[in-house]
């Protein structure tokens, strides 16, 4: 199972996105500043936008799910339980995963954006698609919720997961790193080899690298472990 970008070019007004590479099974992080083209790339990978040139080729991918950046756009039902059901899920399962079981009959618009994010993330994960695309899944979440979201992502043991995020504090364990810079997608490679060349690496990773440590992954705990190893 893989998704291949073949000399992809997409233009909209004065913005142009370019990218090539292959997303294999595992968790991929596409990092980059706000406005660099991450959301546009997510829409292209989901097949919701057509490239001007080149192609997005899916090999062995039967189901795709994209989680949009703003969770209120996903709402189509007047109750939270109905919203979970509209994703084709058993509402109790989704609400339990999102820790919203007590609010099944509430209006989804009465949830905070963070709670709504938890709900849509839980629904997207429970659908377990071959290709899961998450556009800024950590925005609007507090640190505890971000860590929970990371653990939920790490439990996904099959398929391709692509996380598009500018988050630089709480990150999940990933298999590969990509970067978007002014519309150009650059593959940094597999983790941990890709970490030293990662331009948007979070400060704790930079600090660990500067001290000579070699973290095995990109989480804060990985940086801590690497520092402990070199300090004995």
């Amino acid at each position, binding site marked *: 199972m893989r998704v291949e970008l073949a000399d992809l070019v997409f233009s909209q007004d004065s913005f142009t996105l370019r990218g090539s590479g292959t997303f294999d099974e595992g968790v991929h992080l596409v990092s980059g500043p706000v406005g660099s083209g991450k959301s546009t790339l997510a829409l292209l990978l989901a097949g*919701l936008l057509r490239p001007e040139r080149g192609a997005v080729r899916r090999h062995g991918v039967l189901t795709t799910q994209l989680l949009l950046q703003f969770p209120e*756009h996903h709402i189509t039902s007047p109750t939270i339980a109905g919203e979970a059901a509209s994703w084709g899920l058993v509402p109790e399962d989704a609400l339990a995963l999102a820790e919203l079981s007590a609010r099944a009959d509430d209006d989804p*618009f009465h949830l905070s954006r963070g709670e709504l994010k938890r709900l849509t993330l839980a629904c997207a994960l429970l659908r377990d698609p071959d290709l899961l695309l998450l556009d800024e899944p950590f925005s609007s979440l507090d640190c505890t919720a971000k860590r929970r979201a990371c653990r939920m992502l790490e439990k996904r043991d099959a398929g391709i997961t692509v996380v598009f995020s500018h988050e630089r504090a709480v990150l999940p364990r990933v298999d590969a790193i990509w970067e978007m810079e002014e519309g150009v997608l650059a593959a940094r490679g597999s983790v941990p080899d890709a970490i030293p060349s990662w331009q948007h690496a979070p400060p704790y990773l930079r600090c660990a690298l500067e001290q000579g440590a070699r973290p095995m992954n990109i989480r804060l705990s990985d940086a801590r472990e690497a520092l402990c190893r070199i300090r004995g």
Partner: protein
Amino acid sequence: MQDPRLRLFSVTVLSLAAFASTVGAAAAFVWWLLFTPRAKSLPRPGVLLPLVAMVAATALVSSWGGGAGLSYLVRMTVILLLASWAYAETENGEVLAVAVWALGNRVGFEVGLVAELGISGISVLRKEIEQVRMAMALKGIRPGARSIVPLAVTLIVTQIRRADEVARLLVVRGYTIGGKTCPRFRADPLDVPAAIAAVIPALLSTLPLRDVFILVG
């Protein structure tokens, strides 16, 4: 047309002419052909066609009821063309500048600010519709009668929340009433002739042309 004052005058006069009679609408359409970039000023078909379809549906209902459905379709379509042109040509801050020029820094600023927020809301609304449509497509919900209610609910709620956020931001920044701005306007040599020509459809729409032709006959 570069001068926003003349553009606002022209679009107002032409819209009234088009609304008043079919003759006025036909004359306003000729004006649109002569003085605007025509098709270049139109929004993409995905935006324009649903609006025309809504007008056509209303016209059809009117015809069934014995009303002037065809005339309504022609008049409202011309008004849509004029509105599309005026929206495409309007740049940020122009409506505020015209309102302050016309009504002063107190009332004019208030009116202009409300108008600017309303116009900026149109582009936000367009993006929101695209996002909600995409989200529905991801759930396998096809565009149709069943998708209209959730789409409308999401748009209304997000627009009310946006208006509330903007209002709070204005208060936080110390806005109370009125403001100061020194509007400056650019003009194109064709602006004045186009604005004068815009009066012709208005005159034609008020003349009892049928009576004139009967007299001539």
